[in-house]
């Protein structure tokens, strides 16, 4: 399976993402610059964390208007897996590919630590290798990860099983401790925690690897069926 790691000016988790895919997952990965205009040769799209465009205006707002985002939209419409982590999640909400928005943490602090996450929905193409309600340990590193949406949107998310991960504890103010959500179709996931930093016990944990394995497994199964 071939992944595109989208690189914006100010992305800083692109190397971690590349390493996770290539060295730990054993799949193909390529960096793709934000002004590229074709993603058709990739099977999965990854938007890494960082501070694209220095978080100017609003985090993710300027990256959202990049040329590559039209291609990311096309990939999402084609049903390809699209994963946005941290700043990648912020970009996906600004682009309208996911509902809601990420606000400043309620305590105004940039927080960097490993936290407990609950798998709220293990029946998605990103979480099939986890079990329902499993608790995993994944690092977070953000100043603006306080997920906000209005009541109607929250009800929709809940009803459709679009809340995929939640924090075990409330530390940033996110509505109902939401840490990650998926689109209605189920192929676009955004999350603040960093699974790509938890892919080897050598670096402190490997609970994130199952997320990437889920994507690959689902892709393999789909391709075998269609072959």
């Amino acid at each position, binding site marked *: 399976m071939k992944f595109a790691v989208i690189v914006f000016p100010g992305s800083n988790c692109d190397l971690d993402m590349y390493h996770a895919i290539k060295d730990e997952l054993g799949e193909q990965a390529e960096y793709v610059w934000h002004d590229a205009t074709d993603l058709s040769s990739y099977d999965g799209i990854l938007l890494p964390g960082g501070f694209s465009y220095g978080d100017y*205006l609003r985090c993710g707002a300027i990256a959202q208007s990049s040329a590559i985002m039209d291609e990311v939209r096309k990939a999402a419409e084609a049903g390809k897996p699209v994963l946005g982590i941290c700043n990648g999640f912020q970009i996906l909400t600004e682009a309208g590919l996911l509902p809601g*928005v990420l*606000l400043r943490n*309620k*305590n105004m602090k940039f927080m960097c630590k490993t936290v407990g996450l609950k798998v709220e929905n293990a029946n998605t193409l990103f979480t099939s290798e986890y079990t329902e309600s499993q608790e995993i340990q994944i690092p977070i590193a953000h100043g603006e990860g*306080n997920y*906000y949406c209005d009541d109607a949107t929250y009800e929709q998310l809940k009803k459709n099983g679009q809340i995929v991960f939640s924090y075990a504890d409330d530390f940033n*103010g996110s509505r109902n401790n939401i840490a990650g959500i998926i689109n209605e179709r189920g192929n676009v996931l955004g999350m603040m925690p960093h699974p790509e930093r938890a892919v080897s016990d050598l670096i402190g944990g490997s609970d994130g690897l199952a997320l990437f394995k889920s994507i690959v497994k689902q892709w393999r199964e789909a391709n075998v069926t269609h072959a």
Partner: protein
Amino acid sequence: MKKVKIYVTLRESVLDPQGSAVMGSLHKMGYAQVEDVRIGKYLELVISDEVSDVDALVNEMCQKLLTNTVIEDYRFEIEEAVSQ
């Protein structure tokens, strides 16, 4: 040329941790009279005279990039810009 002054404010329903922190500081400094602080943004744009409908253009840009209407409201004023 037209000068456009855009005021971006957080919607009433959205908590403003930055504003709360500033209010906390003001209270500590003795300004107990302050009952609420909300922090917003101010933008200035200069628009060419070729544009006939500045109002429509600014609304479009506010909705596409300058504001996030999930959490923000905006209003703007259009003035005749004095060339330098």
